[in-house]
């Protein structure tokens, strides 16, 4: 069987943020107030001209190749190496990085002094050794989320990143770099939703998660997601971004998780449930209900945040506000664009999403973001890598290199583009490790506050 046919069909985190236009049309039919930010001119251009970061992508599965394709569109990226221990994966990625060295050994990436940044997109259980070695070799590191499948590995990664302030480390929590989310955050934090009531998120897609290969050993490797010893299952591999987003918006950490998991459809002997539900309790008492399934695609993926005055729906890179009839008038919503959602009307949450502005700008069309959160996350990673390296270089050129404490202090003040840091990546990973534990046990699991602290 052709290897190309075995690439976990449809498993693509880009599904998280499909094209905005089709979604907008669907939502318009249902009617909601849409919340989305204006396209950032600098971001649309892919960052500052002249910035070029030489980067290697390690792990060239479906998502790794999506990363290579995204980097190919970023002017600030120069993909100089692609690496996977499986030669066919390297070959499949090569057309998107025609000038990159094609490597099968990670050591070759480490030894290449030309490479300043590494993107790790291997299976989760392989992250720790690769990240620690890359940081030790002086490379900036972007590591996909979740960071690890065990607390020890997550802690080792975060501590290695903490010990390397002269390097950028970014967990792949791409929503934390999404301008749409940053546009929403102050709105949410301002209390515009009233008192927090609850959150809800889902990820639905009919797909098997199983890949085939004529080589049994390779097949076992490919199906690491179905191995309970290596995988956190749906709640870890898929929900990490959505649960972290709730953590970010609530500005609280999960304190307990109740989970259930069943194999309802893909009864092929797998031990990882194809359908999971979880109830995540935050330290402010608010609960996020989450469900994911590989057995049905209806309604895909989205997140809802409910307050006593309003609710917000986030789908891909758009958002809508739904007000309660007794909610106080915010003022601006009078002029905001509105879209119908079945029996509800949603207010578009968007910079420039005002009818009054349209009159001024003669109906100038504002398209939602066409770039994905992954694009913005990688763009910010490259810019941060560039700026941190530059700041360290300037500091050493100014004061010498015999005062690491002063250098660390200086680097801590360098302005960074929005991105999750090592602690946020660690904490998001802890949350889903415990959620996976709850799903496995089918019961409530407490998450002690001290577990979120790095030791």
């Amino acid at each position, binding site marked *: 069987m052709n290897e190309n046919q075995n690439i976990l069909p449809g498993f693509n985190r880009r599904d998280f943020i499909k094209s905005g236009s089709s979604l907008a049309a669907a939502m318009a039919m249902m009617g909601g107030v849409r919340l989305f930010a204006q396209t950032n001119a*600098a971001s649309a251009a892919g960052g*500052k001209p*002249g910035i070029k970061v030489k980067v290697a992508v390690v792990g060239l599965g479906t998502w790794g190749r999506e990363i290579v394709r995204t980097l190919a569109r970023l002017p600030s990226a120069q993909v100089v190496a692609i690496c996977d221990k499986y030669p066919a994966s390297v070959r499949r990625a090569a057309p998107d990085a025609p000038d990159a060295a094609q490597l099968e050994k990670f050591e070759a990436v480490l030894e290449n002094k030309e490479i300043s940044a590494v993107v790790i997109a291997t299976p989760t259980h392989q992250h720790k050794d690769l990240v620690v070695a890359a940081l030790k070799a002086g490379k900036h590191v972007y590591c996909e989320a979740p960071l690890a499948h065990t607390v020890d590995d997550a802690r080792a990664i975060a501590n290695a990143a903490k010990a390397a302030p002269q390097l950028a480390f970014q967990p792949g929590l791409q929503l934390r770099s999404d301008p749409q989310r940053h546009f929403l955050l102050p709105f949410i934090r301002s209390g515009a939703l009233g008192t927090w009531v609850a959150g809800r998120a889902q990820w639905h897609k009919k797909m098997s998660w199983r890949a085939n290969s004529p080589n049994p050993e390779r097949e076992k490797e490919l199906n690491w997601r179905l191995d309970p010893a290596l995988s956190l299952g749906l709640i870890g591999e898929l929900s990490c971004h959505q649960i972290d987003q709730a953590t970010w918006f609530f500005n609280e950490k999960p304190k307990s998780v109740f989970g259930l998991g069943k194999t309802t459809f893909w009864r092929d002997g797998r031990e990882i449930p194809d359908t999971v539900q979880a109830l995540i309790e935050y330290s402010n008492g608010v609960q996020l209900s989450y469900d994911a399934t590989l057995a049905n695609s209806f309604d895909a993926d989205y997140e809802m945040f409910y307050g006593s005055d309003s609710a917000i729906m986030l789908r891909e890179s758009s958002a809508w506000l739904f007000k309660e009839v007794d909610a106080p008038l915010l003022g601006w919503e009078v002029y905001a664009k509105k879209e119908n959602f079945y029996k509800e009307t949603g207010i578009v949450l968007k910079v420039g999403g005002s009818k009054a502005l349209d009159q001024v700008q003669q109906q100038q069309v504002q398209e939602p973001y066409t770039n994905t959160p992954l694009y913005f996350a990688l763009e910010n990673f490259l810019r941060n890598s560039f700026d941190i390296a530059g*700041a360290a270089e300037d500091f050493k050129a*100014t004061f010498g290199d015999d005062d690491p404490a002063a250098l660390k202090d200086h680097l801590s003040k360098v*302005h960074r583009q929005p991105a999750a840091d090592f602690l946020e990546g660690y904490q998001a990973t802890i949350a889903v490790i415990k959620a996976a534990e709850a799903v496995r046990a089918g019961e409530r699991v407490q998450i002690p506050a001290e577990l979120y602290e790095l030791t």
Partner: protein
Amino acid sequence: MKLRTLIAANLMIALAGTVVVQAQTTRLGAKPGSKMRIEGTSNVHDWQVEGKLIGGYLEVGKDFPLEPGAKATPGKIEVKGEAFVPVRSMASIEKDGRSYSTKMDDIMYEKMLATANPKIFYRLSELTLKETAKDKDSPYLFDSKGELVVAGITNQVAMPVSILPLADGKVKISGKTDLKMTDFKIEPPAPKIALGLIKTGDPVTIIFDWMVGPAKSVAAK
């Protein structure tokens, strides 16, 4: 033999002279704790950029006040010095110190031709003590002359500076001067991202606190 003696004597004199000069001058190197700020205007609001890196050195003669309350006589001071600021260490900030805009930073770097001229240089040529310190906590007031190189363009700059010797051996050199961007052939930015509607004013004010101390320094390049 006579020639050898003569050469040896000359060498000794030369060496002695060097020792005398070295004994009379103190070299101060850049220390963390510096700050340089540029303040400007626009037709929308005032703006400011700030950086924390000022490198270089200062070689001062015996009359330079190195300790709080040290005696000093008004007049010209034997001094030689160079300072530099990495352009990309400067960043736009809000009035409260929070970062303002990476886009504005990039515009600034572009206007200052940072790729070709990654550092702002200042070469001190003259320092004249005008007023000694009133007490141990007060600065000495000087007039300074030197040349400032921004975006590869050199201009002579004269400005008052205050010099405050600190108890830990460091010296804080502070100054403020008004300049024009166009004097350095920098066209005041009118960012395209705002449809060119925002126009910055030509005059800017440079404010700095440069910390130096008796330690090894990194030479300006």
